C-alpha cells in the first residue's frame, strides 16, 4: 500500500517534469526562433568613402562591406543592388539660416557584388570601387550602398566632401 503510493507520486512527478521540459523546450524555441530573429535574413552593411586627388584629378574611393549576422544564407539579387552617388544640390546664394542639403536623383550608379549570389552565415564580403569625378562645382557627395534580397533591401550611407 505504502510503496504503491510512493510509486504513484514518483510517476506523477515524472509526468510533471516531462510536461515542464516540453513547455520549456517550446518556450526556448519560440524565443530563439521568433523573438531572437536569428533565422531572419540579417545583414550588416557598411561603407567607407573618401576623396583622393591624383595628378589634379579627384577620385571617390568607396569600400563597401556586407556581413551576414544571421544564421541563414542571404541570397543577393543584382536587380536593385548597387552603389549610388548623389551630388549636393547647391544653391546660388548661401542660405541665410542653417538648412538641410537636398539630394537629387543619383548622378551615377554602379554594380557591386556582381560575382556573388549570396552571403553565408558569419561570412563578410567586401569590394572597393574607385570613381573618377568630373571637374565641376560639386564638392559634396552622398554615397549609398543598396543590397537587395527578396523583398528586403539594406542600406548604408556616407557623405564625403572635398575642396
Amino acid at each position, binding site marked *: 500500500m505504502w510503496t504503491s503510493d510512493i510509486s504513484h507520486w514518483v510517476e506523477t512527478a515524472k509526468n510533471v517534469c516531462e510536461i515542464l521540459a516540453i513547455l520549456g523546450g517550446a518556450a526556448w524555441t519560440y524565443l530563439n526562433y521568433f523573438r531572437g530573429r536569428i533565422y531572419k535574413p540579417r545583414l550588416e552593411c557598411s561603407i567607407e568613402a573618401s576623396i583622393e586627388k591624383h595628378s589634379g584629378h579627384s577620385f571617390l574611393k568607396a569600400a563597401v562591406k556586407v556581413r551576414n549576422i544571421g544564421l541563414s544564407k542571404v541570397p543577393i539579387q543584382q536587380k536593385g543592388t548597387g552603389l549610388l552617388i548623389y551630388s549636393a544640390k547647391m544653391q546660388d546664394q548661401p542660405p541665410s539660416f542653417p538648412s538641410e542639403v537636398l539630394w537629387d536623383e543619383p548622378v551615377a550608379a554602379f554594380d557591386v557584388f556582381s560575382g556573388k549570389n549570396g552571403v553565408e552565415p558569419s561570412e563578410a564580403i567586401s569590394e572597393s570601387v574607385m570613381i573618377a569625378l568630373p571637374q565641376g562645382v560639386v564638392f559634396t557627395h552622398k554615397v549609398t550602398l543598396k543590397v537587395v534580397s527578396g523583398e528586403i*533591401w539594406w542600406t548604408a550611407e556616407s557623405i564625403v566632401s572635398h575642396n
Partner: protein
Amino acid sequence: MATQTRDGERWTQDQIDAVERAKELQRRREQEANQQRDANSQNRQAEDRQ
C-alpha cells in the same frame, strides 16, 4: 561616418526601378565614352598615316 541598417526594409518597385535606371544610364554613358575614345584614337591613327 556611415549609417547602417541590420534588419533591412521592404523596397518598393519605384525604388528598385530608380536604381536600375541610374545603373543603365551609367552603362550607356560609359559605352558612349568608350566609343568616343575609339573614334578619337582611329582619327589620330589616320592623321598619323597621312
